[in-house]
């Protein structure tokens, strides 16, 4: 390679794809059937936020029933109509439907589609340096399948028999037999159709995310130079790709059981003394299939939030992330383990105790990579120049929830202890902290942090802080007492406990939880106001408001279709060069070559520059683009 391998870019705007001309379409092609990943991300975001609001309101309605069992809810009749009984109470079957829909909406529509859909779509091309996703068309389909799925689920809220009511885990036979509960009729059918469409959407999205990350990275963006967000989305997409087909398989068999009379999950059932014709099915089989998705789903929800916070915490501590490789490794380890722990949801199904202890062991091992992550978050914060932006506050909140919620996982993951705690409010407290609130905080943190890139304006930081503190304290007020309620033996999904004398001593605690839930939901309206106000009236965002190193901040304030007006920037260093000793500023963007920063290079980085120059003559004169 002694020959001149020198490329000279004389043109300032080198158009390498013909992508960077502005697309002037009409309203439909620009905002509705758009193939631009940034618009699709916004579509996911807005739909996800709408669902979050619906899911939150549903939870407050059933919290009213639990906290104030004697209160009259007559005032809800204009909205809920026949679902309020003549005595002014929530109909007990509708209560179950509320719980089911709250779970389904939050887990799938908000924290899977709303979180992964928004941030994977938005950040993957921007942070790996790609013009768009590998297939913009598939990406658009992914959103529209999600929209269709949302439409079915939304419709099911308004039918006369009510939405699905068998719990978000839709265990048969409850979900399979329309005689079991009203919601198992049309509501369940709509649920299954909706989820089938949802799975198609997730797979289309996931295939795109993985392909883009593997194949569309810009020059120099090696795997070890990818931001942790991208690593997180990558693992998330792989988990989804491997686990969602299994849910699809389970749902298809359930559809056959419900509508075609097969007996995959049904056997020996008598209704009003009449035997059903179904023989030979196994309801436990459904649980195995469901939880083979269901457990990885927990990490599908959580990993993107962990990736987002890794990025935010490093940026706002002005320090490199502590243990980059350990962070990637622990995510990989979590992703692998997520597939071999599903039966810890089924300890009380009459499982062989020996098998139970194996699943206990595997489950408890997850504590190791999780602890590594928490340790790395804390050590990144340690002695950093911390800037408490709203995004940072929510990220630190996530670390807190991940810890408190994760610790109770150690108890629940133990097959012996689980006998006492199974299906009590202890479980509810555990997963709402570690998976629900933690992921929700990750999502909110991401919105605050990347809002300038989404809409070119800043959100209000003071309102953000208010939003954070009310939500943070509120979430703990909601879920911390639930641990005690759970240990006392309160079963989840019960409509009313007032019939049990034992439980009346906890009425005040339940009331506190309900009040806190209302306040926490109320605080989200501060966020909504801040969000929508800032889209149009927020302070105009500078190019790189957080002093961040990653590629998305090298794009214009309103990136067009194709993201970078000129050539795609090249990447020369990892994304966490914050407060590097000797450097002029406290961050060095990924696009700055080592040869330009001799003052801060470490010895091995200087070697790298020399090696490049000496070895191949592969030195390219490159016009500086910024």
């Amino acid at each position, binding site marked *: 390679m002694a020959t001149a391998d020198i490329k*000279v870019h004389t043109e*300032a705007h080198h158009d390498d794809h013909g992508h960077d001309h502005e697309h002037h379409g009409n309203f439909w092609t620009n905002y509705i059937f758009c193939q631009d990943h940034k618009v699709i991300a916004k579509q996911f975001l807005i739909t996800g936020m709408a669902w979050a609001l619906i899911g939150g309101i549903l939870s407050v309605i059933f919290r009213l029933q639990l906290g104030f069992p004697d209160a009259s809810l007559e005032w809800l009749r204009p909205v809920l109509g026949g679902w309020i009984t003549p005595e002014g109470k929530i109909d007990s079957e509708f209560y179950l439907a509320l719980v089911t829909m709250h779970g389904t909406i939050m887990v799938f529509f908000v924290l899977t589609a709303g979180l992964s859909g928004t941030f994977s779509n938005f950040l993957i091309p921007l942070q790996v340096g790609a013009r768009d996703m*590998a*297939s913009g068309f*598939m990406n658009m389909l992914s959103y529209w399948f999600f929209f269709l799925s949302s439409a079915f689920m939304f419709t099911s809220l308004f039918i006369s028999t009510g939405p699905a009511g068998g719990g978000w885990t839709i265990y048969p036979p409850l979900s399979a037999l329309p005689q079991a509960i009203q919601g198992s009729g049309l509501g369940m059918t709509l649920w299954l159709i909706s989820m089938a469409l949802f799975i198609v959407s997730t*797979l289309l999205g*996931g*295939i*795109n995310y*993985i*392909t*883009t990350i*593997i*194949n*569309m990275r*810009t*020059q*120099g*963006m*090696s795997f070890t130079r990818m931001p942790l967000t991208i690593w997180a989305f990558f693992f998330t997409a792989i988990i989804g*790709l*491997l*686990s*969602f*087909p*299994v849910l699809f*398989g*389970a749902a*298809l*068999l359930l559809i*056959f059981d419900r509508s*075609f*009379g*097969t*007996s*995959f999950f049904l*056997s020996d059932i008598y209704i009003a003394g009449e035997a059903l014709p179904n*023989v*030979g*099915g*196994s309801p436990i*089989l459904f649980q*195995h*299939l469901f939880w*083979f998705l269901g457990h990885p789903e927990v990490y599908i929800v959580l990993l993107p939030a962990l990736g987002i916070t890794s990025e935010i915490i490093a940026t706002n501590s002005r320090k490199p992330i502590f243990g980059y490789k350990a962070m990637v490794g622990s995510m990989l380890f979590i992703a692998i383990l997520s597939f071999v722990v599903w039966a810890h949801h089924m300890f009380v199904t009459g499982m062989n105790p020996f098998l139970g202890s194996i699943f206990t062991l595997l489950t408890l091992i997850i504590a190791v990579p999780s602890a590594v992550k928490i340790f790395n978050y804390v050590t990144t914060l340690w002695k950093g120049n911390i800037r408490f932006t709203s995004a940072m506050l929510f990220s630190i909140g996530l670390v807190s929830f991940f810890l408190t919620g994760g610790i109770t996982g150690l108890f629940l993951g133990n097959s012996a202890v689980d006998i006492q705690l199974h299906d009590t409010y202890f479980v509810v407290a555990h997963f709402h902290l570690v998976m629900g609130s933690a992921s929700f905080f990750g999502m909110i943190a991401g919105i605050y942090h990347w809002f300038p890139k989404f809409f070119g304006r800043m959100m209000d930081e003071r309102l953000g802080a208010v939003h954070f503190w009310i939500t943070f304290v509120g979430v703990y007020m909601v879920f911390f007492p639930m641990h005690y309620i759970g240990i006392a033996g309160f079963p989840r999904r019960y409509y009313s406990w007032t019939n049990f004398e034992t439980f009346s001593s906890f009425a005040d605690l339940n009331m506190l939880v309900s009040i806190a839930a209302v306040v926490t939901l109320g605080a989200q309206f501060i966020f909504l106001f801040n969000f929508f106000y800032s889209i149009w009236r927020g302070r105009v965002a500078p190019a790189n408001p957080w002093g961040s190193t990653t590629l998305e901040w090298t794009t214009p304030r309103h990136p067009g279709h194709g993201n970078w007006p000129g050539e795609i920037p*090249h990447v*020369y260093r990892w994304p966490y060069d914050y407060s590097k000793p000797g450097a002029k500023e406290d961050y060095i963007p990924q696009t700055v*070559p080592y*040869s*330009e920063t001799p003052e801060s290079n470490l010895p091995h980085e200087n070697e*790298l520059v020399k090696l*490049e*120059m000496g070895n191949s003559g*592969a*030195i*390219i*004169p*490159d*016009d*500086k683009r910024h």
Partner: protein
Amino acid sequence: MATGEMKIVEEPKKVLTMHPKKFALWLFMASVLMLFASWTSAYIVRQAEGNWVFFELPVLFYYSTAIIVISSVTMQLGYWAAKRNQFDKVRSLVLATTILGVLFLAGQVMGWAQLVGNSIYFVGNPSGSFVYVITGVHGLHILSAIIFLLVVLNSASKKRIHSGNLAQMEMCTTYWHFLGFLWVYLFIFMLINR
């Protein structure tokens, strides 16, 4: 920018990539594999619980297995022909694969008729229902591959498939082989675990 200011910088390393669409196809096949893996493991779990009706698989499934194996051979020959720019050969071999694919589907449906003749219905003991679900959903995938084959056949007749433009043909070949192997796996699985 246009001042002609030049900077000497180290060249960033190129990243390892492959054809995005081919890669996406492999990912799709992984998810299809997971779907069938879930059903075959469900099959084993359910079988272990007892109350499992034993029956012989239809003889036609043996013939359809032979057909799909032959079709994989014709497809591979077609791919090699495309590499050597033998336009007519590509077209006839893709056509042969398509016809064999349709024959396979016909064989599967007639196999179902044999099952029904044997009093094994879709509705009944799960041992039978599983066979219908597995063969049926595999058949749907074969149908999707036949549509893909027709698209390739169209390109082949317009002489658009040659050594310089192989991606489509390559992807179709990969998908067809995958579904062939998948069927062989499913068939052997059902033979062993009756």
